[in-house]
């Protein structure tokens, strides 16, 4: 990306380029997640998708969310996933019977769904530009969840607590 592009004002080419690349990778990875024949591979492709999402957050100037994405999703949830997988004897190599018998059904459904959504989206937000804002300072976030969204915030903590206890009890019932 040369100084020309950097200088170019209005629609920011470099961002679009970046977006395009990342998006392509994400789609490819996502497709792999749902088609690959090995659970661990699927998990790793999912990691790619998630990092892609994080990158998109950055592009969308949501710095804190992006990093939370990395910390929680990649650092924690995926580890959880891998543990879960390895504890259920993920074998190395191709694994048969990961798909339902009627998996073909999924393709049309997916396509139709995507078509509908795309139509709606294009219809609604035809071509309005995203403002090129800097990153939202973290304090704004904390303002929100310590302000108007306080109740859902506490609710979430309740949910987490319930999840923790429930999951532990489930897992350790022996």
């Amino acid at each position, binding site marked *: 990306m040369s100084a020309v592009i950097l200088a170019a004002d209005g629609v920011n080419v470099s961002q679009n380029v970046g977006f395009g690349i990342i998006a392509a990778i994400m789609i490819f990875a996502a497709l792999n997640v749902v088609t690959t024949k090995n659970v661990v591979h699927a998990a790793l492709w999912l990691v790619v998708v998630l990092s892609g999402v994080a990158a998109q957050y*950055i592009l969308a100037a949501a710095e804190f969310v992006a990093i*939370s994405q990395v910390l929680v999703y990649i650092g924690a949830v995926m580890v*959880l996933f891998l543990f879960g997988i390895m504890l259920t004897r993920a074998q190395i190599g191709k694994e048969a019977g990961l798909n339902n018998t009627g998996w073909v059904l999924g393709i049309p459904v997916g396509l139709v769904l995507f078509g509908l959504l795309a139509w709606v989206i294009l219809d609604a937000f035809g071509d309005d530009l995203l403002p090129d804002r*800097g990153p939202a300072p973290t304090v704004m976030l904390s303002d929100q969840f310590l302000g108007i969204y306080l109740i859902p915030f506490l609710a979430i*903590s309740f949910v987490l*607590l319930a999840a923790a206890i429930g999951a532990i009890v489930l*897992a*350790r019932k022996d």
Partner: protein
Amino acid sequence: MSVFLRDYLTVVWFGLAALAVGGLLLGLAALVRPSRPNYDKGIAYESGVDPVGIGWSQSQIRYYVFALLFVIFDVEAVFLFPWAANIERYGTFGLVTMLIFIVLLLDGLVYAWKRGLLRWV
């Protein structure tokens, strides 16, 4: 492009640099190193005898429990940091809220602890 994005571009460069370094050295090594595979080389190392058995037991489940607790507290950290960064701003109110928050999550840990779920076996 904003400074903010450039910084993150730097991150990308570093990531690529890591892969490049690793890849480059591996590539060089590939030019030099010999490769003479044979059967014994291929089998897993198990103190010199044939690998015994496959799979492993499900009572490794405890790993899962700890991972789960880790996730929960990780999420907690996500919410703690913004508050911690500008703590004066929220004063006592934020303090109380966060204490409630922490205590709530600690309950999970304490519960597991009391139920003896943190024991290793």
